[in-house]
């Protein structure tokens, strides 16, 4: 169970047609791009894949499609988060039946349950499957509900398939507390960096990394990850700073920034679904100009 190590996990965007349906033709291209540019696993649909804007049926269809397209070339991790525990657990079961290697879930959307019910939420999702289960902690997006060390320890105690925590808090203190305490009772517990801020996460114990910017700069992402896996973190500083700069540019462009950046790299993926704002022509122009000034992108692949 605990043998599964995700490694460098690409988190693809979900392309939509002008009529706002999932564009599976384009999604096939997205998947193939990631598989040909360094992905050791795929996780989908993450928040950067607009999971929360997809219906339950669409999320299931997307996962099924991905499994068929990937054909076992790399493991696929299904993101199954929802507001309702039962809904998320049902989605996890479906994902396992479809053939994913693991599932991942955040704290519940909207509700702010007490700590014991947050544990219950995760325990029921994890117990719904026999494949590895990861908790995804992203307080910047789900600020009201916190995860504490004792909750993680309770989950380790309750779930034999609880494989680890994907951290997007970027909080050194949180990561150290979680992993140092988890390793005392479960040496195989995995800390996974939920973003490309891998130097600090790796230095305190992260061994895998989720990356959305892999759709923009897969070579840079792979370089950072590979250096970090050798634990030569001083050597990784330049790649880390380059990715931090790229991330700031994409973030400043707003919700449509990631797809806009992919478009600038010759990989048109359309606009995000409402209620997220589409990137305006002016916004795209500014984004493309800023990306054009990043020397590190000149060696990155253009087009599909």
């Amino acid at each position, binding site marked *: 169970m605990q043998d599964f190590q995700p490694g460098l996990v690409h988190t693809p965007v979900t392309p939509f047609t002008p009529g706002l349906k999932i564009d599976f033709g384009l999604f096939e291209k997205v998947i193939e791009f990631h598989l040909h540019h360094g992905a050791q696993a795929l996780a989908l649909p993450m928040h950067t894949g607009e999971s929360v804007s997809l219906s339950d049926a669409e999320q299931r269809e997307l996962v099924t499609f991905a499994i068929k397209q990937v054909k076992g070339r790399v493991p696929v991790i299904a993101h199954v988060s929802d507001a309702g525990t039962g809904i998320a657990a049902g989605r996890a079961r479906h994902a396992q039946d479809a053939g994913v290697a693991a599932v991942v879930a955040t704290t519940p959307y909207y509700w702010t349950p007490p700590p014991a019910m947050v544990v219950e939420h995760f325990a029921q999702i994890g117990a719904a499957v026999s494949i590895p289960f990861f908790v995804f902690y992203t307080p910047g997006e789900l600020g009201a509900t916190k995860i504490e060390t004792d909750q993680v320890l309770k989950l380790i105690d309750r779930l034999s398939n609880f494989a680890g925590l994907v951290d997007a*808090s*970027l*909080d*050194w*203190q949180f*990561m*150290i*507390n979680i992993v*140092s305490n988890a390793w005392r009772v479960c040496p195989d517990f995995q800390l996974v960096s939920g*973003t490309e*801020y891998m*130097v*600090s*996460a790796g*230095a*305190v*114990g992260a061994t895998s990394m989720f990356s959305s910017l892999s759709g923009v700069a897969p070579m840079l992402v792979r370089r950072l990850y590979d250096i970090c896996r050798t*634990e*030569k*973190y*001083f050597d*990784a*500083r330049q790649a*880390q*700073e380059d990715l*931090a*700069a790229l*991330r*700031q540019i994409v973030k400043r462009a707003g919700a449509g920034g990631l797809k806009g950046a992919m478009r600038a790299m010759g990989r048109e993926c359309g606009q995000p679904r409402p209620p997220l704002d589409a990137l305006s022509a002016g916004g795209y122009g500014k984004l493309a100009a800023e990306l054009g000034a990043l020397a590190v992108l000149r060696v990155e692949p253009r087009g599909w």
Partner: protein
Amino acid sequence: MSISLKGVMQSTVTPLKADFSPDLPTFERLLDFHVRTGATAISWPHHKGESLNLTIAERKAFSEVAVKVVAGRVPVSIHVSALAVEDSMELARHAQRIGADAIIAITPYFWAPTVDAIYDYFVRLGTAVDLPLIAYNSPSYLAGVEFTGELTRRLIERLPNFIAMKEASFNSEKFLEISRVALALRPNFSMIAGVEFLAPSVPLGCAGSYSSAGAICPNLCTQLYAACAAGESARARELQFKLARLWNLFRDQYPSSLKGGMVVMGRPVGPTRPPLPTASQERQAYIATQLGELGILETEPHGW
């Protein structure tokens, strides 16, 4: 005017007598202890030194002792932040008059100033004295009021004496946003971690830390910095986990628990002024147990 800030720097606690009045003789012993046990700089009074519970007159008296006792063995920085900006200005001018080596200041308290107001404040402070200026970023304690990369750039371009930042967000994204800008514009700028979160920050260019636990375990603090600086990742992680456990112990009722721990280590520094509590005998006994479990009692100096 230039000073170098690197390694494990100590921001001392403030010794008080049983009646809560200043205990200057013990302050002298404490300063000497820190210098003898490897502090590369002294800074007083950070929040750990109960700065906001001291009158301006008391702060001046302690500052004079700090400069006199350290006597140029290592640089002495004076923390000048006060509730009223006019008091901060007065403390800054006083620091220069008594021969301090630098001043340090956090973003203004209570108010939620605009970025321009924060800029104006630091420009006023930095131009009022002919001393190096260290900025202090602590967004979690000041309701999100914080430095950005852009604000840092503006201040570096405006102030030749802006030489360092105590960065206490403990967050990869925030640290990198500031460090990328600061170190590119001023390569000898010192990014200093608040508390000993060195494993995640030194590979990103962090020069050292303002220690929280140095009055308890100076050897451990020095060993952590040395392991980080040498790129010994596994060793650094092991020591970082130990110091994180100590930080969890001391940040509860900080700095009361720290003062309680100093009693255990044979270096009593008296009570903590209200509204902060003073560590009870039961709390001290618990701290002693924890220090015993961590091996601190056997490996660190006891007494002065």
